[in-house]
């Protein structure tokens, strides 16, 4: 194992410990009906993160199937957390002032610096930035170290199973390739794309991302399918810069998110929260911007990628 791999194994083990803390928090919450399955979800997840590299693939596969089944059957719920009350945060805010931003901002800067100047890889840079942020939080805010555990577990539980979605979806993309779904999409699309027309390929990829997102309500799921089916064969294989295609591809999908009632937590639930007369007023306010942004994506991708 190289040094970088060892470092990332250490970070993954720490992530595993955070998962275990969330699981323990669930187990202790006797009011939670699904506490056993909820805890099982987090413990299995922690197991794959900590023991992952030493396991045969089939065991990891079984773990993921169990996790997916628990999530699909809605046996995983948020347990009771030690949520700081508004009075507490207000009092702390008045005492600390704007210093409270320092550790949080430090994460973003430290990540970029570590990725640029250290040779541990971009992935480890994020872990390093978290260490920097935590150190500053303990020094500047003078938070007790215990807070790192309680507040970390609280937020992780909040993010919940959605937090591991990116990794599952990336695997889904591989699955699509293996099953040949990408080939089916690309042979269908190849009818539409005239040989060598880069602009048409860019337009189809960006619109495809948006349309698929409108249907699924989620840009993440669309990304792995459309990128494997259209982005790779018609753009990247034709010499487009993969960084540009990837970065702009996902946000092109978000143009679709702005237009769809399927993305209820962004577009529909807030209108209930604000007690609007027109349930679709948020989507209506977003449509013109979504259209302009779509054009901006197409132009930007066309000029930057080639």
């Amino acid at each position, binding site marked *: 194992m190289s040094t970088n791999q060892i470092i990332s194994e250490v970070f993954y083990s720490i992530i595993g410990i955070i998962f275990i803390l969330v699981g323990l928090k669930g187990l202790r919450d006797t009011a939670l009906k699904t506490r056993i399955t909820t805890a099982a979800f987090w413990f299995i997840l922690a197991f794959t993160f900590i023991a992952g590299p030493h396991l045969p693939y089939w065991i990891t596969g079984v773990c993921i199937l169990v996790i997916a089944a628990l999530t699909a059957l809605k046996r995983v719920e948020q347990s009771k957390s030690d949520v700081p009350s508004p009075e507490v945060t207000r009092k702390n805010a008045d005492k*600390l002032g704007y210093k409270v931003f320092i550790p949080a901002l430090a994460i973003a800067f430290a990540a970029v610096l570590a990725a640029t100047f250290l040779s541990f890889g971009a992935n480890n840079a994020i872990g390093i930035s978290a260490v920097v942020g935590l150190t500053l939080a303990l020094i500047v805010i003078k938070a007790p170290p215990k807070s790192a555990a309680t507040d970390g577990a609280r*937020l992780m539980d909040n993010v919940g199973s959605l937090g591991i979605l990116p990794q599952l979806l990336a695997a889904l993309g591989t699955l699509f390739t293996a099953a040949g779904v990408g080939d089916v999409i690309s042979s269908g699309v190849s009818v539409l794309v005239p040989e060598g027309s880069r602009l048409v390929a860019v337009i189809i990829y960006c619109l495809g991302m948006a349309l698929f997102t409108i249907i699924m309500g989620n840009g993440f799921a669309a990304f792995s399918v459309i990128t494997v089916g259209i982005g790779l064969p018609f753009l990247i294989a034709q010499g487009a810069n993969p960084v540009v295609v990837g*970065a702009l591809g996902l946000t092109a999908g978000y143009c679709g998110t702005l237009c769809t009632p399927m993305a209820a937590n962004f577009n529909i639930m807030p209108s209930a929260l604000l007690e609007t007369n027109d349930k679709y007023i948020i989507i209506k306010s977003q449509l013109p911007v979504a259209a302009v942004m779509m054009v901006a994506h197409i132009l930007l991708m066309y000029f930057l990628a080639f």
Partner: protein
Amino acid sequence: MFVLTLPVIGICERYGLKDKAVDLIRKAKAATTGRVISIYLVIRAIAAGMSLRLGGHPEFVRPLINPMAQAAAVAKYGKLTEKTEDEIKGYSSANENFGNFFAQNCFMGSSGTLLIVSTLVEQGQNVDALQIAKMSIPIAVIAVVVGIIHNLLLDRKFSGQYAAKQGVK
């Protein structure tokens, strides 16, 4: 890997991160609805790009941005029609989404950025999170500019509508 940043963000929240952001926005004395919402868009986008979990319809838009934007319009035009109130609510919520969606990938550890990296790497492309985060900056800036223009056009629409109404009186 973004999981590792959660303890820090959690501690900052406990020690008043959101409260200070509210203070910051309250200080902004913007005269019009469009400007109030635009200031929020800028702050929201910067926060998203820095991985600060600042926004949210329940935490910011409902208690803070929408009331401030409504108040700015009332100060200017007096009583508002229900349609105007709805439009302001729509724009307030929409800008939360604009800032959140288009700026979040500027942070290397955001889940979107990591999805892009892992999808492309699984397909044999050699990309890393820093490259993706940097390449996400242009579209974030464009989104903020487009959003601000859209908000300022709302101001113009209101002043046209309410000027016409007063003319009829």
